[in-house]
């Protein structure tokens, strides 16, 4: 069953068509990759799903609920979380605070409660800190909760960003190039970690990835975008042998000659 569906999705920036008539289904509990050359519209698609962009045409539904017109925070409340291509942590906050911010939607206390610090608020905060510590442990950052996010090592920053996304308790996690800038060993660890997210937490993973080794290694379905349209979709091996994909990545014979 599809957890996320996009139908005839179109997004334009002025005259540039970033996405045109895109249809895409993400199956529940799957690991689904979106690949394509630079400027193919992958990140634009993420931004449309998360409410950061509003599409001109088309429909996106998540668990049969329409996402069109929702603000990013409302989309997140429904259970979609994301990470960014260039890591975007709250750099001057500690790792723990980053995760606590991620838990925002699952906490209730308002400003009056904050000032009076009622027993309820105190309990809620303690519970939140406990859960945040558990998340830190889950992503392997235990003991680094008090580091400022920007002082963490690059790989740790990636994992903290995922931990922050997990803190929103998502059903669908969008990862934008999670292995960008990683060495082979870190990449292997990240792949194992992504699999663990799906297997242990049951989270559906939609990821943008450039490293073919990662795409082919962990995805069950691969969608290939080029110029905002879907040019191929299927299992990694199907996609790999699709002539249109090869053409998009390497160009046609004529283009090469040119």
């Amino acid at each position, binding site marked *: 069953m599809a957890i996320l569906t996009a139908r005839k999705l179109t997004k334009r920036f002025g005259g540039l068509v970033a996405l045109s008539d895109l249809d895409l289904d993400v199956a529940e509990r799957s690991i689904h990759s979106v690949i394509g050359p630079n400027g193919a519209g992958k990140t634009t698609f993420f931004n449309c799903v998360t409410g*950061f962009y509003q599409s001109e045409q088309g429909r996106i539904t998540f668990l049969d609920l329409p996402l069109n017109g929702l603000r*990013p925070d409302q989309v997140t409340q429904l259970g979609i979380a994301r990470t960014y291509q260039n890591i*975007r942590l709250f750099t001057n*906050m500690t790792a*723990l605070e980053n995760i*606590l911010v*991620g838990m925002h939607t699952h906490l209730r206390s308002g400003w009056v409660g*904050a000032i009076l610090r009622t027993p309820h608020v105190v309990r809620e*905060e303690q519970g939140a800190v406990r859960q945040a510590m558990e998340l830190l442990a889950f992503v392997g950052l235990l003991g680094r909760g008090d580091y400022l996010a920007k002082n963490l090592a690059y790989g740790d920053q990636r994992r903290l960003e995922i931990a922050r996304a997990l803190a*929103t308790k998502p059903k669908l996690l969008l990862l934008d190039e999670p292995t960008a800038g990683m060495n082979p060993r870190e990449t292997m660890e990240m792949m194992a970690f992504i699999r663990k997210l799906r297997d242990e937490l049951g989270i559906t993973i939609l990821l943008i990835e450039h490293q073919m080794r990662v795409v082919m290694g962990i995805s069950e379905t691969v969608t290939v975008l080029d110029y905002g349209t879907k040019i191929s979709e299927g299992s990694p091996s199907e996609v790999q042998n699709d002539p249109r994909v090869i053409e998009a990545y390497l160009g046609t014979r004529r283009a090469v000659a040119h």
Partner: protein
Amino acid sequence: MVFLGLVGMVEVFARKAIIVGVISLGHTLLLLTGLAAGLQAAARAGRRPIPALGAALLAGAMSGVVVCAFIVVGTSANLRGMFVNASPALFGLLSFGRGTAGIPLVVLAWTVVSLLGGTFAILPPAIRRPLSAGGAAVLLLGLFQELLQLLLQEGTIRPLVRAFFFDNDGLVVRGAVTGLAAAVVWSAVRQRWRPSIRTRFLHMTPRNRRASLYLVLLLTVVVLFYLPIFLGEFVSQVLVFVGLFTLMGLGLNLEVGFAGLLDLGFVAFFAIGAYTVALLTTPEKYALVHLPFWAAVPVAVLVSLIAGIFFGLPILGIRGDYLAIATLGFGEIIRLLVLSDFLKPWLGGARGIVNLPKPVLFGFEFKQFGQLFWITLAASALIAFVAARLRDSRLGRSWMAIREDEDVAEAVGINTINAKLLAYGLGGAFAGMGGAIFAVMIGSVFPQSFSLLVSINTLALIIVGGVGSLPGVIVGSLFLVGLPELLREFSEFRFLVYGAVLILMMQVRPEGLWPAVSVAREFRPDEGPSPAREEALATGGEGGG
């Protein structure tokens, strides 16, 4: 140095004695410049004795030569056409009264002084610290002699203390020596005992630790309660102003420091608070109702809060520099509205609303500054407490997330619209309370009191104190509001000194006088994380207070 002489500071200060009959402020200034030159040169040379002293020697000789050149030019040609203050008296002062004949002496003096500065730089800290404490003490005693004498006028023991330290002209030698000795001893004692007190505090059981904290708190309250009685009206008035700016600063800090929303129209909320109280308490024709002060304050706070939310609505989507300009407009709109003829029948126009009654509590009228200080102090304490609680809450975290990256904050589920409006509303409410107290302190409200300069001063005090830091707000307002009032000694150079201090501050301590914890680490990353805090969070999650 030449610059200082030309603007006339040296000459004016020459008339002010630091220690009567020994050294004048003008000479002190020269001396300090020389010392600083040596210190700087030595520090750059790396604090190893030989190169450091060499550098200091060179720096001193060079400054001496420059000053001599200045003397030669000044005595042979008349510079007064361009520089009003390049008077014969100045050159007399610079050349120790000997004119061009004193040149070798001048170079020698500068070299010696600079060498002293250099020596000072290479001294071990254990000696350097008490010495600089002593020097600073004498300087402060001399600088603030007028103020101190004022404070020591009444009572039985105080005049005796005054007679010991000062005469009519200023600090006397025995006073200076006593001050120096006291500061040296105090600094040495502090160095010896402070670490042990600290470790003892850290090794206390949590219960004892809490008890001793409460004890310190209680002592502070008692001291602050008696402070206005001891200090007299003038200083109390200054302190009330400091308190009001603290209130404003705490409010603006909530917007700028916590949520990262730059606001240059903050005075609007101050005005709204003040005018609300005025309209609710004045016996004049503008009165809406006649409420006592205590009932009017909550209304003023509420009105400011609502005003803050309405103020925030149109500027929700504006970020960064544009936000600063938009808010700048708001502040001016409010001021021009109350000034306008259009609203004159209700707000009194340029003549304002006068004759506000002073607050009365159980038959006790708060009419003197010393008494109003208590109200300001109580309000500041309350607001600081509220601000600390907010900072350490879910809302505080979402503000900081918005400050760090608004898009991502929204993407992790924060309703940025609500969070930003709350920042404007609560920040406005804090300033509204300040405005309310300001209205009854002055006893009247005029549009002129709510100029752009108030917004800018508030912003400056936050930056000087440390953006996002609550103690920083208090330190900043003491420094930027209190100090200029007390520095009346510097006469027309007050603002020059003020400006110079600001520039120096931003150079030396860009993070502020008392920075927030995370900002301190940002500017000094080598200090690393503190495991203690993580532990505290893990065990209790209790941070504020």
